[in-house]
């Protein structure tokens, strides 16, 4: 009964979404308060029913109800409880349901926390959210229904793909979707603004907390996905430029650009057209990512052509939403008045520079991701655009951006003097130069690029705090005054600093691990020893262990560090019984910010075991940097001092919540 009620709730949600798509928009068009007021209630209703459906599916997974095809295909009764739950979104149908659940969650959040948004704008936003929900609910019900039944139920399920049975996957997709789908809000805001014709700095102010929230979830989701691939796949790489990764990275680049251009629009009412366009593009890229990952087009264009039902459907959604919003944009954009003027050297100028480079980078990654698909579709040749393409194109695009990053926040709006800003950065530049020279001197056998990269990272990390340093007057006023000024700075300033600092930390990790990584691949038998980067490891033997739904061969390694302390590492090879599928469980030892990473290869012909060991210096900084970025976003979002309060006269109304002046 629960299963069928879940199915029924999902259909009810579609019916409510249809009403949500229609009535509030009619209300906004006619200026009818009653109809506009339906938006929040309907958004909450849609969310409640999708949540009920999601709960029913989760219940079926938890109780191993294999009368649902989806559960039978992706679960197994012997699976640990955590992976029974995460299995809900570890497959196509369930993950699409999570997608709409999060979409409707954002709708509900606008309903609950958006009372500072003018009613007509909010009604239009919720209607656009309703249209997106309609499209995806139809997609789920017509092509990917998780509530399809099997009768009689098979006794045992097919189990979840073993590489997905991991704690990383428990959190990564929900985070990623919170980001992906979060940009649907900015899209809806853009569409609503174009429908109502009001596109001004206030709009940017209303939309920015949503963009910021989506951005920080997307950042966290991508970072988590990267760490998951790093430790679970056993290759020791942290980013593969894999199309699935790119599909989440393109919206991130566009979203980061949006975050910065919305700042200009809010403060100076400039870049309006561009900001609206970015809001459309960012969500379009999210949709495109969903299409790429979900249609099967990545595995093979031909596989997609053979079973095109789902792919065509998402493609239609893509065409309707991207095409529709761009048409609306084409109609509205010419009517927009240009906003505040500014000199090239100004805060606005710096942010335009940022946007140009981020947008170009997004376009580059998009090209590299789609080119193989186009090639396969046109010529049938299967090519892959790998890391070299992205390193050559993406890397150089980032360098100017990183070089100017500390400078931007120091420039004033409208027109700025370059000289005082540079003067403030003088000591930071000097320090970064010293770091570069020191690294170059210490690592004579390494490419000079490594030293330059580390110098750049130091420049970005130190420069991130230049504005705070200056504003607090550290070194120029008494320490006590500085301290109190430090406390008085807006949180958004700290948010910006933390976010930019995180980029520097990430860069440091990337440069260190790219330049100084050491790798050893050896065939070992019990009693053998090998070493990597001064760490000696002795292979003591292999121990069979059995887990709840797998059995594994655990290699016993005793590692001696260059300083003589000894610790054990236990890389393993697992076989998951239900699918008879092997996975590699790497052993990772964190030493400071660096990691020793050991994974097992195959058993060689002579019975020896292939052991791959990497020394990955400062590798954890990559994810620590991402944590700083997320932290920066959260700090900005928490800035309560500058909220927009509706008139004192209307005090009976609920108090408004509006984090403002967020920066990333």
């Amino acid at each position, binding site marked *: 009964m629960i299963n069928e009620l879940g199915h*029924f709730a999902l259909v009810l949600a*579609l019916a409510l979404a*249809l*009403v949500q798509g229609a009535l509030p928009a009619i209300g906004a068009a006619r*200026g009818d308060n009653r109809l506009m007021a339906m938006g929040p209630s309907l958004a909450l209703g849609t969310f409640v029913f999708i949540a009920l459906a999601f709960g029913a599916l989760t219940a079926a997974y938890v109780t191993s109800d294999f009368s649902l095809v989806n559960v039978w295909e992706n679960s197994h009764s012997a699976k640990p409880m955590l992976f029974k739950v995460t299995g809900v979104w570890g497959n196509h149908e369930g993950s699409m349901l999570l997608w709409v659940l999060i979409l409707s969650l954002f709708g509900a959040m606008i309903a609950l926390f958006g009372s500072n948004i003018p009613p007509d704008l909010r009604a239009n936003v919720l209607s656009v959210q309703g249209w997106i929900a309609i499209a995806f609910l139809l997609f789920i019900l017509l092509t990917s229904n998780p509530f399809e039944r099997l009768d009689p139920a098979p006794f045992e399920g097919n189990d979840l793909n073993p590489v997905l049975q991991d704690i990383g996957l428990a959190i990564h997709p929900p985070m990623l979707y919170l980001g992906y789908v979060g940009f649907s809000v900015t899209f809806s805001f853009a569409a609503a603004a174009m429908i109502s014709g009001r596109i001004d700095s206030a709009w940017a102010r209303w939309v920015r907390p949503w963009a910021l929230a989506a951005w920080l979830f997307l950042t966290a989701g991508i970072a988590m996905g990267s760490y998951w691939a790093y430790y679970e796949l056993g290759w020791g790489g942290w980013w593969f430029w894999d199309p699935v990764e790119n599909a989440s990275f393109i919206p991130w680049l566009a979203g980061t650009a949006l975050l910065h251009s919305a700042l200009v629009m809010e403060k100076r009412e400039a870049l309006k057209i561009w900001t609206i366009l970015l809001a459309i593009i960012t969500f379009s890229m999210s949709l495109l990512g969903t299409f790429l990952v979900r249609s099967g087009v990545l595995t093979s264009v031909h596989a997609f052509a053979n079973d095109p039902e789902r792919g065509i459907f998402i493609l239609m959604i893509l065409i309707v939403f991207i095409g529709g919003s761009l048409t609306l944009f084409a109609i509205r954009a010419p009517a927009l008045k240009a906003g505040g003027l500014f000199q090239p050297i100004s805060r606005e100028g710096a942010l335009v520079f940022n946007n140009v480079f981020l947008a170009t980078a997004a376009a580059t990654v998009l090209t590299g991701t789609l080119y193989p698909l186009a090639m396969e579709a046109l010529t049938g040749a299967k090519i892959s655009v790998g890391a070299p393409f992205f390193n050559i194109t993406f890397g150089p695009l980032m360098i100017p951006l990183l070089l100017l990053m500390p400078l931007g926040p120091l420039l004033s709006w409208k027109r700025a003097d370059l000289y005082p800003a540079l003067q403030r950065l003088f000591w930071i530049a000097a320090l970064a130069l010293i770091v570069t020279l020191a690294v170059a001197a210490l690592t004579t056998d390494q490419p000079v690029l490594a030293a330059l990269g580390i110098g750049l990272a130091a420049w970005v990390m130190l420069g991130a705090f230049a504005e705070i340093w200056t504003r607090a007057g550290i070194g120029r006023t008494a320490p006590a005054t500085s301290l109190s000024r430090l406390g008085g700075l807006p949180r958004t300033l700290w948010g910006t600093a933390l976010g930019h600092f995180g980029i520097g930390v990430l860069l440091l990790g990337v440069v260190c691990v790219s330049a100084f990584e050491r790798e050893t691949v050896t065939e070992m038998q019990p009693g053998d020893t090998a070493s990597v980067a001064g760490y000696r490891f002795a292979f003591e033997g292999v121990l069979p262990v059995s887990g709840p739904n797998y059995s594994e061969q655990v290699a016993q390694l005793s590692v001696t560090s260059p300083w003589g302390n000894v610790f054990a590492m236990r890389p393993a090879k697992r076989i998951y019984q239900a699918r008879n599928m092997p996975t590699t469980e790497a052993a990772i030892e964190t030493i400071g910010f660096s990691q020793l990473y050991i994974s097992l290869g195959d058993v060689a012909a002579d019975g020896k075991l292939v052991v791959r060991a990497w020394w990955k210096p400062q590798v954890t900084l990559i994810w620590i940097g991402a944590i700083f970025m997320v932290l920066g976003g959260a700090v900005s979002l928490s800035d309560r001092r500058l909220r927009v309060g509706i008139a004192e006269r209307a005090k009976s109304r609920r108090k408004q919540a509006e984090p403002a002046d967020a920066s990333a």
Partner: protein
Amino acid sequence: MVFWFAAACLTLLAILFVLMPLARAGRDAADPFEYDKAMFRARRREIENDVALGRISGDAAKAAIAEEGRKLIARAEQGAPRTGPLSLGAARMLVLVAALAVPLLALGGYLYAGNPGLPDQRLASRLDASLADQPIAELIRRAETHLADNPDDVQGWKVLGPIYTRMGRYQEAVQAWSNVLRLAPETPEIRSTLAIAMIAASQGLITERARALLDAEVADNPESVQANFYLAVAAGQQGDHAEAVRRWDRLIAGAEPQAPWLATARSLRAKAAGFAGLEADTAADTAPGPSRQQVEDAAALSTDDRQAMISGMVERLSDRLAQSPTDKEGWKRLARAYIVLGERDRLARAVETAIAANGDDAAFVGEMRAALAQLPPHQQEAPSGPSNDTEEARE
């Protein structure tokens, strides 16, 4: 019934989400201009804060606040150039239509796609159902649960082993028989039974471990038919066809004439003899067999490929016979091939065609009939481990 009641409650809740705003509407119809005023105040506060922090100068702040003020005035002058709101009746009408459409759409959509009568089939509740109603898979499941708690119950493993084999779950059969060997090494034929399960799990390939187990069995029990049978197969797989023929001969010589595996053993022996280049014991084997090159190729192939190569040769022979159906030696060879491959249906068809084309030769017709009799429907091709009926699983 309960389902429809619950569905009705959900529907009611959905309708409430549509109707609720109607009850509240009108009470909090704030002037849209308030939002602009609030925005102006917030911006002014922010600018004042920037001045306090020294981010902008006082003059710039004044200009900025003036700018915000101009924006506010512009909004105020713009007013609300909207079309008038709907009449109360029209708005109510729309909402009521929506409130009606929601249950109708949901019901229609659900009846189209859903299975309202189908109950949940949770694992736990299915386990509680009465034993007799349950398919074998569920009984296995119960036995597995029991064995997970009592891994030393040798009887349980003995029951599960053959069931796994029959279901094609060879890996688990190997595990079950390994446990029997661990717990009761004195069980008759246990080593060869385990070896056979391993062979099945590796798709017919006799691995080093399986072979060692077979050797151990023969050391204990030199008369073990299944061990000797698979040792002969193993010799063939390793390319030692002469040894294979020797083993087959010994096995066939000691066999009871009615043994079900005898036919298979004979044909395998003939094949081994063919590979070994030895004179086979039937006249038919003087007919053109695979060339030396073909045999060497076949030996180098994997089991699957070899199978494919053999069936390719059989296919060609069958095609040739379709052109010249009077080739009696050809028919005999094709029949033997089908017997080896266990292809009962094609054998029957071949025998039929052969007899139809050569009905005048009584001796040939007899031979073909005998060939067909060698492969009766559902005959076991090879001896299997101790057979346990599925009934035992119900104990």
